[in-house]
């Protein structure tokens, strides 16, 4: 599975790019995209604002191969009335301030940090409250849920400003350091999400010999689906038994399907 990371600012992205050894993909110029050599991790700089976040997610999906098993992570800074600067939170509710739409990221693992709700604003604000403020999460989440699995899409925010230390007091280096200091927590969350991702990915493994069967016999689209389903069942019922040997003499795809059905239905069935 691949990991797709979305940061609004280059200074938020820098420590992540360094940590995962990501390289800029120069063929994409609408948004800056970085990727690891093994293509397992990629990062896009969305620029500020929820509209940019929506466009960046769509652009990323259109240009970088994504799947339903992938992990989608929005990482950035956010303000809060009294949480200490540098602390990290995982978001469990996102409210779009403009239209009051709500999203509820599904945190089904034990996160290594506390959870909190967040409001995505259209413009910066220094009126801190008991939830986090940012400018991208609602756009990111709205767009990412079109392509990914809800349980694998999350937003992580590092507190950059509060009532005692307003945003005007921090610079790009400070932001990079805030993110850099939380790389361990980010990695822990990624590890949890990788476990979940691999669990659902394992449900989509192709049965033995499926591709060979498609090469050897002709199957219509419906028959291809039937073949996949029957071979899957065959592998579960007879893990030691190789069906391709039995089917060697069969002449058509239809005969293969019939033979598979017969074997599954006419052999004694044992649950244990």
């Amino acid at each position, binding site marked *: 599975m691949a990991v797709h990371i979305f940061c609004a600012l280059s200074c938020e992205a820098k420590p992540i790019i360094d940590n995962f050894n990501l390289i800029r993909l120069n063929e994409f110029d609408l948004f800056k995209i970085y990727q690891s050599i093994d293509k397992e991790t990629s990062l896009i700089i969305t620029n500020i604002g929820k509209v940019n976040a929506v466009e960046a997610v769509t652009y990323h999906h259109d240009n970088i191969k994504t799947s339903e098993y992938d992990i989608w992570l929005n990482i950035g800074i956010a303000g809060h009335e009294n949480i200490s600067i540098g602390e990290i939170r995982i978001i469990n509710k996102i409210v779009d301030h403009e239209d009051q739409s*709500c999203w509820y990221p*599904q945190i*089904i*693992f034990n996160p290594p940090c506390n959870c909190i709700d967040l409001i995505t604003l259209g413009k910066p604000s220094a009126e801190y409250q008991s939830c986090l403020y940012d400018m991208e999460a609602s756009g990111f989440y709205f767009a990412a849920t079109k392509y990914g699995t809800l*349980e694998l899409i999350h937003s992580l925010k590092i507190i950059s400003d509060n009532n005692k230390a307003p945003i005007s007091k921090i610079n790009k280096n400070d932001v990079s350091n805030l993110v850099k200091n939380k790389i361990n927590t980010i990695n822990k969350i990624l590890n949890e999400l990788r476990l*979940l991702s691999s669990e659902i990915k394992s449900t989509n493994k192709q049965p033995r010999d499926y591709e060979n069967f498609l090469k050897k016999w002709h199957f219509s689209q419906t028959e291809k689906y039937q073949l996949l389903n029957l071979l899957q069942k065959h592998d579960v*019922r007879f893990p030691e038994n190789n069906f391709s040997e039995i089917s060697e003499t069969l002449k058509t795809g239809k005969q293969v399907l019939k033979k598979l059905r017969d074997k599954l*239905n006419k052999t*004694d069935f044992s649950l*244990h």
Partner: protein
Amino acid sequence: MINTIYIEKEIANHPRTKMLIERFPNAAKITCERYTEIFNRKAQNFRLQKKNPALILAKKYKNMVLKAPNHYGIGAEHNYYFSHMLNCIYDCRYCFLQGMFQSAHYVLFINYEDFINEIKLILKKHSRENVHFFSGYDCDSLALDSISDFTKFFMPFFELNPSGLIELRTKSTQIRPLLRISPINNCVVAFSFTPNKISSTLEHKTSSVARRLEAIIELQKNGWQIGLRFDPLIYTKDFFIEYEELFDSIFSKINSKLLHSVSLGGFRLPKNYFRKIEKLYPDEILLTSPLTEKNNVLCYPDDIQDNMFSFCEKTIGQYVSPEKFFPCYEVI
């Protein structure tokens, strides 16, 4: 056990909501407008959510009590079901809930009073007849009773309304709330069973057959009416041996004369639910069982089904009189 609780704004100040929240001081509490904002959203994965389901406290507005399907019943002419909760703490691989919902979170409708009001209307409608109410259709009736106080609230109502009988369908051994009160004649605690080996293969997170039997014995001692539910019957090569052992172990331990009812039903799943479950658990051997399709329902072929039913009917017939026995042959 519960790390996240979603709470509908409208019932946030309901005393039952407050009581429930107090029981999970460490859980994250998140308010929402309607539970459907979280439950059953597109792109959710039931299998992943089942690893750590959240509790959703909600209010049910309509369709509180529904007519049960025609063939569903244990002796009354009028049968209804209601679900104060959606989803179950257990993880039985044959369960239709995995196919019906995208989401594995537990939804608890806390407006019990509204359920009671609708039950009252139904009892009034059938004022001179017996009416049965089934409570464990979309959930296990007792599994979360210690936190939901379901029986604490509903039992006194049924005690005062004897023309309505309530069935608590369960695999749970959480019977303490029932043991604390006097037994009610018009309540049947109905335990579901499959043989030990089948149960340990398919009924994840449930208590063992032996523990369920202990619970039955305890409830019988205290005067509660017990039902036995062999639904679904699960086919395997050694079906006859495994089910014979199960019937022996049950009927040798419990007082079969005191049984309220015994019912049977074959494994069946609507085709679209079956396909969803196949996608969630492609390695599940149950789903490779010999099955056939009848009216968009996947079930055992007639020869297997007939053999299973006739064996079970014959064996159970040795212990239970025909008027207490309710086999359900229908698949839809």
